[in-house]
């Protein structure tokens, strides 16, 4: 039987759903870069105060702030997609014999992540204030 197979080239541009998926996948590049920069900071810290100050100076440059702003947005988007698919990756969760609805799993994941982020941010803020004195 003669058939025609359509090419797949450019498939991710065919549907907005695929574009969002590709953005989710691409966000890992920025997240990896962010992690590597942070790791470099740790290495500089081990090398001494001057090295660490130089690293801090690089971080305060406009392109670095721009990169971190983009990385933050992508991390937030990645986290959102991660929680959104979380119920799909779990076996059915039951509480008192009743199935826990997906929306509850998703929202409690997002809430836990938000609360932890706030606590972590507050702790870092408090630590930087108390060490500045």
């Amino acid at each position, binding site marked *: *039987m*003669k*058939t*025609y*197979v*359509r090419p*797949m080239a450019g*498939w*991710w541009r*065919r*549907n907005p*759903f*695929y574009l969002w*998926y590709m953005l989710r*996948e691409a966000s890992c590049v920025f997240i990896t870069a962010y992690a590597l920069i942070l790791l470099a900071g740790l290495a500089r810290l081990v090398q001494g105060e001057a090295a660490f100050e130089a690293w801090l100076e690089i971080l305060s440059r406009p392109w670095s702030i721009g990169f971190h702003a983009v990385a933050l947005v992508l991390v937030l988007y990645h986290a959102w997609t991660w929680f959104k*698919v979380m*119920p*799909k*990756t*779990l*076996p*059915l969760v*039951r509480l008192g*014999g009743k*199935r826990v609805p997906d929306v509850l799993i998703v929202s409690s994941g997002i809430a836990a992540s938000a609360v932890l982020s706030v606590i972590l941010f507050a702790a870092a803020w408090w630590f930087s204030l108390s060490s500045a004195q």
Partner: protein
Amino acid sequence: MKKTIQIECLRYHPETDAAPRYQTYEVPFTDDMSLLQGLQYIKDRLDGSLTFRWSCRMAICGSCGSMVNGVPKLSCETFLRDLHPGKVRVEPLAHFPIVRDLAIDQTDFLKKLESIKPYLIPKTAPGKDTFLQTPEQMEDYYQYSQCINCLLCYAACPQYGLNGNFTGPAALALLHRYNADSRDAGKAQRMEIVNAEDGVWSCTLVSYCSEVCPKGVDPARAVNQNKIESTKDYFLRFLMPKGKVE
């Protein structure tokens, strides 16, 4: 006066066409007309050579799946009034070879469906025991049993489009339907398909399959729950006596 809508169909005749082309038809419609009825109007009144599959007209048989403006849909439950006044483009389901016009070749899926043993494999010979099931046990697999094999999920899955060997959403969802059934004892036989490179591990959780399913099945969930099963299957054999995992 009746409203009309332009329906642009992908046309491909294997004997005369080297590649598909598009043909537009002006179709009069009423508010209660589905896209399938629009296609039937074309075949009956405008062009008898247009080829497409259909049967039940009520989202049960799963025959009339097609790409409607790039989105996999059943043409019987897609209404022309919702597509008006734009032009609607109808193409055969993506990722499948086109046999003619809107008809695709499902051989590949049928082979995969057969391979997952889509039937209960009981522990004991039939007739010996009754197999009672609680509502909770039924809930574990019920939604997956709603699959009508319409293949919209395959048309939504870019991983299947890029790698035709991928077992794919519907076959894996149906595999899970039987594995998750308390009456079934065939899990060990099906795990080979789950564990394979082209089994659940070819899925990257695009999860568009679950979005397009017309029956509320969540194939992405079945596939990704089986990533856990596959991981357990791999690691537990180091711990279980004689390497056997039940």
